[in-house]
């Protein structure tokens, strides 16, 4: 599904060179729920951005569904994301001018899905995240948990094969965290999607099939939880 090969990322800050990722290789399997766990500054977010094609690696390749992400032009990457990738952000990133329904249907809008069809799909998504009553609400009228549920609905609405979640519960309290996490996991399992989580929170990582510990730009260790035997470091 996702094949990370010898990825290295070096930032140049002034005269100084900062190695964010040293040399990372990893295979993520279809339908796997994989969590990258690390402290802030470990390079886990950089890895996620590189996987999503938002950043280019200094060295190495990322192959998603047989396509080399780092070789694509920005235009191609955007198209690729539109078709294959869903995103859940830490700070929700809902468009403030749009209602919950419009926010959820946004990825479908970008794909050119007709309005009545995308409204129907978005409605179903909102229903399954338990926000049926809030479809006409603007983000400012909702709590953080509700907003993140809208964000999840948006990430899953176009049924992308891969969903990235960057600290999805970073701004939520523990009770809501639990709700949001199980919601995401259920959805990923239901639609047979690959879910890639990035977090610094050990308790979140416990939800995943596999935990990849990242430390100073390297994979420190990989912890598997039964189901996905045989997957590991290349």
């Amino acid at each position, binding site marked *: 599904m996702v094949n990370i090969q010898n990825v290295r990322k070096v930032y140049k800050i002034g005269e100084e060179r900062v190695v964010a990722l040293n040399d990372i290789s990893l295979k993520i399997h279809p339908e796997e729920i994989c969590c990258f766990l690390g402290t802030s500054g470990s390079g886990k977010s950089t890895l996620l*951005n590189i996987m*999503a094609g*938002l*950043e280019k690696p200094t060295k190495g390749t990322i192959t998603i569904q047989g396509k080399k992400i780092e070789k694509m032009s*920005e*235009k191609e990457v*955007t*198209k690729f*994301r*539109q*078709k294959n*990738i869903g*995103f859940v*952000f830490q700070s929700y*990133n809902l*468009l*403030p*001018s*749009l209602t919950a329904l419009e926010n959820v249907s*946004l*990825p479908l*809008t*970008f*794909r*050119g899905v*007709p*309005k009545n069809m995308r409204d129907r799909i978005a409605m179903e998504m909102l229903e399954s995240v338990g926000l049926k009553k809030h479809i006409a609400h603007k983000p400012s009228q909702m709590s953080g948990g509700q907003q993140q549920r809208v964000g999840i609905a*948006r990430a899953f609405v176009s049924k992308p094969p891969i969903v990235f979640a960057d600290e999805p519960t970073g701004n939520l309290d523990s009770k809501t965290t639990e709700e949001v996490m199980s919601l995401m996991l259920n959805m990923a399992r239901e639609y047979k999607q690959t879910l890639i989580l990035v977090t610094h929170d050990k308790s979140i990582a416990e939800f995943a099939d596999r935990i990849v510990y990242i430390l100073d730009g390297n994979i420190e260790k990989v912890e598997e939880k039964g189901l996905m035997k045989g997957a590991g470091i290349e």
Partner: protein
Amino acid sequence: MNNLDLIKMALGNLLRRKTRTLLTILGVVIGTSSIVVMLSLGIAMDYSFKEQLSRMGSLNLIDVNNYGFYGEGIAPGGGKDLKLDDHAVNSIRQIQGVQGVMPIKTAYVRIVAGKMMGNLPVIGIQPELMEVFDFKVETGRLLMASDKDAIVFGKQITMNFYNPRLRNPQFGPMGPEPPKIDLMNNKLILTTSMEYGERRMAGVERDPNQKPPKLYKVKGVGILQESQSEKDYNAYMHMDTLQKILEESQRTEQGEGQRRRGSQQNDQYERVSVKVEDINQVEAVQEQIKTMGFQPFSLTDMLKSMKETSRKMQAILGGIGAVSLFVAAIGITNTMVMSIYERTREIGVMKVLGADLTDIRKLFLLEAGMIGFGGGLLGLVLSYLISLGLNKIGGGFLGGMGGNTGISVIPFQLAMAALAFSTIVGLVSGFSPARRAMNLSALEAIRSE
């Protein structure tokens, strides 16, 4: 993204910042209406020139006189003995765009109708050309090719008649009222002798050698409609008849040494009137006649110089207006740039969620274009109101000069052009911000707080 979604989204974004959008639009409104109103003043000037001129005569007529072309030396035919004869008429007729050529001869004759008598100019023309040259009758009919002795009178011609038996016979155009005379039904006698019908003064010996003037019986067949042109003051008859009358009159007058000047030579015309099909071809035709060596004259000459003046005025006035639209354009760019700063994060999210780059550019272009279009539309409404006001207030003291035109005219084409222009200004102003939005790094954008 389909276009409807883009439009909706752009509109939504504009409505989100109502005050700012409104202020930006206001700039465009002022810019557009100042251009439109300024230009409308120039256009109105143009129109009133045209109106004034067309009151003076038809704009697609060219007159070629038989004087002024020799001895001038400037004209290509200068020095040569050019004649305004049938040959010249034929070659003028062959110029492209010429609808008809009417050779003209004039004779000053005396016509006696019953008790009344009048001296008037009679113009010889070819009857079949009357319709081409816009002769219209009020009563009776136009000349026909078979009319040898028929005359058509201009509307004001009755002013020339008086009763010689009355003490104060001169009514003239200044008289208290036009003489009552029926030119259609009276028997008319035409003569070239200006002494016919006068009472002879006592003591003046009559020259025994002088033949009595030849008299011609003619009949009036029509009175022309009033046209506010020279047609009102002339009588018209068949060219051949007039030709004959002129020849015979010369013969009788030869003995007295009163031979007419060269302008009335038999094979030459005094004047040739050329009708051009399309008003826009007048200049070209006139130019061609000039290369033949003649000195053509048309009202278009005057119109041309008047147009030149009004074009200059329009350029100056339009330039003043353009400055304010330019300022408005800067306003649009500023608004769009601000809007991008504000929405950086949003743009980033859209990019991450898979919005096409071109869609992002389109979205911003659309917003800028909408400001331009909306401003243009409102600006037009304002322009029409201002124009209306100007014509109401200013029409009073300029009315005498401007005729019915008023001082501000906004033709439909100007309105459409203004709308298109303001939209284009919007798009152009939005172009660079839109590119910037498109090229924004998605990662930087979502990181920015």
